[in-house]
């Protein structure tokens, strides 16, 4: 596949804070590439550098064969950005907003009007196009926000947490639109801290935290990283020595007084392990069982839960 986006050794600091630390990745044409990470992981800083809003301290960005440092304006012309916040003029109608944003990309006259109509149809807001944005619901605002980044029919689309703070129904609509765009050959970078979103729509995922990409690949490749095993976490009033014998052949991921994390092959072995644990009469406060998933991958590669 043709590489549409190539990022090498990208870094950016804000004073003492190193927001992005030498990350690198590639995105193929027509691919949905996801950035999964908690708030403050460096997702928005990465998107800002990709969109030309922030200059990297070091590293390079090449998009569609053009270097961002020397062809920033040309790259921005083929790129659509959907920011995390609702970046719209609330006093204007949805249509007026789209006419303005489309105009900034050089569209004019009939071409602009047609593009706006197409974008409005895509997000099913043609009926409310003449109403001021301030009268829209949260989900509708998100959709028109998405629309504003698509009106000029970009080749590359950067979506920064586009489903933040909306109801499940509106989220599904937005995800459907994003999938539809990928089907039409658009190259998409999608940041999120929702695991299920990343699993659902991304072709490849990069796990990012503290400005570092810990792992990247397809969902299957990432799950393989944790060995495709079930992870069981037990907490309670026990010492490390008390439970060591119970583990048997299972792989211990983490053990200390009061907490044990083990990787088990399948559900049968998990049942046997828990049965043995309870039969010892040890005081157990809680048990968490994670099937092989992105969440367990995240925990495995970053050493912590994906937090809000």
């Amino acid at each position, binding site marked *: 596949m043709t590489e549409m986006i190539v990022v090498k050794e990208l870094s950016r600091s804000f004073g003492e804070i190193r927001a992005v630390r030498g990350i690198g990745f590639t995105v193929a044409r027509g691919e949905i590439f996801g950035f999964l990470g908690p708030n403050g992981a460096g997702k928005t800083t990465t998107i800002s550098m990709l969109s030309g*809003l922030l200059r990297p301290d070091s590293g390079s960005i090449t998009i569609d064969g053009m270097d961002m440092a020397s062809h920033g*304006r040309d790259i921005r012309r083929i790129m659509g*950005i959907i920011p995390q*916040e609702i*970046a719209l003029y609330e006093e204007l109608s949805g249509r007026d907003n789209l006419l303005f944003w489309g*105009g*900034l990309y050089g569209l004019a006259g009939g071409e602009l009007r047609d593009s706006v109509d197409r974008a409005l149809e895509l997000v099913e807001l043609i009926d409310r196009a003449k109403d001021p944005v301030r009268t829209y619901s949260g989900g509708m605002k998100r959709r028109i926000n998405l629309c504003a980044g698509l009106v000029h029919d970009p080749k590359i689309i950067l979506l920064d947490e586009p489903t933040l703070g909306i109801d499940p129904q509106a989220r599904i609509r937005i995800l459907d639109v994003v999938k539809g765009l990928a089907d039409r050959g658009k190259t998409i970078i999608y940041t999120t801290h929702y695991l299920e979103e990343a699993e659902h729509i991304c072709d490849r995922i990069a796990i990012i935290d503290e400005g570092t990409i810990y792992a990247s690949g397809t969902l299957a490749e990432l799950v393989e990283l944790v060995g495709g095993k079930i992870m069981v976490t037990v907490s309670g009033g026990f010492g490390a020595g008390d439970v060591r014998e119970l583990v048997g052949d299972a792989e211990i991921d983490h053990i200390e007084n009061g907490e044990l994390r083990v990787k088990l092959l399948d559900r049968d072995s998990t049942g046997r392990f828990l049965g043995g644990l309870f039969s010892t009469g040890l005081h157990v406060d809680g048990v968490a069982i994670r099937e092989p998933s992105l969440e367990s991958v995240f925990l495995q590669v970053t050493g912590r839960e994906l937090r809000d």
Partner: protein
Amino acid sequence: MNEILGILANDIRRRLKSPVSVILMILIPVTMTLIVGIVFGPSGEVTVPKIKVLLVDNDGGFFSGFLMQGMQQGELADMLDITGVSAAEGEKMMSEGKASALIEIPQGFTANILDGVPVEIRLVKNSSEYFLPLVVEEITKTMAVLLDSGSRIFSGPMTRMRSIIDGESWPSTGDMEDVMNGARNGVILVYGYVADSLITFRDEVASAADTAVVAAGEKEDSGGFNIFAYVMPGSMMIGLLFIAELILRDILRERTGGTLPRMLASPVTTSQVVAGKVGAAFAITMISCLILLAVSRIGFSVDLGDPSALFLHTVATILMCTGVMTFLYGAISSERAADAVMSVVIIVMALFGGSMVPYEQMPSALQAAGRFSPVFWAADGMKRIFLFDAGVSDISVHLAILVALGVCSLIPGTLLIRSRIAKGGW
């Protein structure tokens, strides 16, 4: 260019869709003018300071004495502080701004009135004051009209009384009888009211900087002093500065709201975005100014004066307002800082510039400081246009200062904003 115009047009469209804040800003000067106008109006109780008037009596005759005495009697004595001076002294004092007005009665004034020869009284007004010289002008005009009418009605008897006036001898009883009959007939004929004036009046403005007489007034027929024309320019400047500030604050709001970064992520350059925003501030402030001028004319019957002077002064004023506000926003990094700084700066500029209190009533030190306020030059120029029908040449200094201030603040302000945006500091 299309991108700049697109951003500019979008900002105007947004203001049209949501005009409340701009309307409120337009209402500030209108309300201020209305209130001050009502307070200073006929029903208002206002304490007017005693007006310093210099009187040069080159005649020393009966009628010049009548004029001088008349101004020092009754209520006028409480209002005017008349000082008799020589012509040279008078010119010097006026050039130093030590009096509100100078009245010069020409040589042969009395004799010419008695002979029916037209005479002219010269009034020189202090250019740095407005209200007080205009009061003197009105009083002098009234006295001149009284004297003129009286001299016509009593022209016959006065001729007979010439010996008294000239101080030669007392008339006989028969002469006095003739005088009284003549006066009676004069009153009946009221000839003087329908004829051309014998005594005319020349109105001049003296520059405080030098002794040159710079303008001959044309406002005698305009129906007198309009307090709204005096108050509106200063009030207008407050409103216009606040409007320019409101529009430029949008850059900060758009940064936090996300529309500015979104614009910058498009192919539009940072310079185009800043130019569009500053252009929108200029355009919206200009539209607001035109509305205020229309309100002044229609609502307050203000004579807007010379159209070309008004046009140039308006453009220069809006350039100054936009430039100063752009510069300030170039130095301010957040809405919070803007909240703390901008209103204070505008109010201080307006206060020193004479928008809130009459400039001529400020102590001389404050007047001197006021000349450093851009508001002074904007308001002062507009007052001259409204009150003295000043032309372009009369306000050329004002225009030059306003344009210089505008350009010298607009260019660095624009560069500062651009630099902040480019560095990601916004």
